[in-house]
């Protein structure tokens, strides 16, 4: 069974810029996305520099948002890349929290833990539990998504075409976290 929302690579080969009409002041022009890390209580992470770009969908015009991951290109000669994150000791685990994304059903927010350039844990930190039906949807979707975000690395996908609301909120938020991690 193939399942994926995003693809994370250990070698950085991409420059990612995230744009949002909602937060026009922070869009576009940054040369690289640097990590904004929260130190995990159990880890020895360091605080990276700011410069995070805004993300999220404009709630009044619910266009479908794309979820995407950093790409890798093992064979093409023209690729390589720089790691844009701040001070990084590769053995420390760092935690990144994506922007909370407002979906039709409520806010979704994801936190990922990165160690040695791979996502080792992902946790949905905010779910739209506004009513009973939302709970039904999310109790099924969220645990699957949590597991998938970590297994995502095996799927080797660069971008995804098509998606649904709550998963999109998750995916966008995870994408936001991944983009910040600049993997």
């Amino acid at each position, binding site marked *: 069974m*193939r*399942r*994926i929302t995003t*693809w994370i690579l250990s070698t950085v*080969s*991409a*420059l*990612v*810029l*995230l*744009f949002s*009409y909602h937060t*026009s002041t922070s*869009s*576009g*022009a940054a*040369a*690289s996305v640097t990590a904004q890390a929260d130190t995990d209580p159990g880890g020895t992470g360091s605080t990276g520099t700011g410069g995070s770009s805004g993300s999220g*969908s*404009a709630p*009044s*015009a*619910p*266009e*479908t*948002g*794309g*979820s995407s991951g*950093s*790409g890798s*290109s093992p*064979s*093409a000669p*023209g*690729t390589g*890349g*720089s790691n*844009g994150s701040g001070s990084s000791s590769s053995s420390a685990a760092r935690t990144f929290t994506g922007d909370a994304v407002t979906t039709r059903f409520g806010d979704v927010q994801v936190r990922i833990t990165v160690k040695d350039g791979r996502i080792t844990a992902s946790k949905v930190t905010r779910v739209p539990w506004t009513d009973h039906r939302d709970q039904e949807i999310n109790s099924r*979707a969220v645990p*699957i*998504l949590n597991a998938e975000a970590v297994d995502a690395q095996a*799927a*080797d*996908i*660069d*971008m*995804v*075409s*098509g*998606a*649904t*609301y*709550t*998963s*999109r909120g*998750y*995916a*966008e938020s995870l*994408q936001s976290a991944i*983009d910040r991690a600049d993997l």
Partner: protein
Amino acid sequence: MGMPVSVHVRAVEPTRPDLVAGVARVFAHLRRVDAVLSTWRADSDLLRLQHGELADAHPWLAEVTELCLEAEERTDGLFAAWRRRDRGRLTFDPTGLVKGWAVSGAAAHLDVVPEVSYSIGAGGDVVVGAGPGPSAAAPEWRIGVEDPRRPSTLARVVTVRRGAVATSGAAARGAHVVDPRTGSGIMRAGSATVVGPDLLWADVWATAAWVDPVHARALMAAHDPQYALLTL
């Protein structure tokens, strides 16, 4: 448009100034399209024109209008930007075409940056390309097509070096695609994905194929054989 857009690039030095400038132009282009053609921003040229508040419209309006006419003809009316709403009021909604057209136009800003491969994801549509340089070096991008019945799972993977992938369906926004023949929204399970050279037409065909997959498939084979349809 109001959607998050991601731009990914692969280059030996991704932070080099001409590449960063190219990406900035991608976003600037999309912002400009939104200002001119948004159907939900009251100050867009499109809406002001429809309300009779604008005398000189941006030339993009003419371009989009012509493309909508061509799209309606090519898809035998399965794609229709002009629709009669309640009380017979005729409205022009080019949104189904503008998204693909806008992202395709934005991607052109990266087509001129040498030695770079890029992928732009915008609201479920993906365009992949590369700037000038040895074309054999343009890497493949793996584009997953989501299973419309099972969110966050993939039904297929398409590999693209240069081209576009567009998906139309009800999974994200419900019955937002209207069947021009009946006037009502299409609400069924599944999706239609089109892979082809240009995102504008991939988007148009995906919409047409969502309306009528059988008819669209025949039309595509006859008029646009470079575009492949995947129905889920």
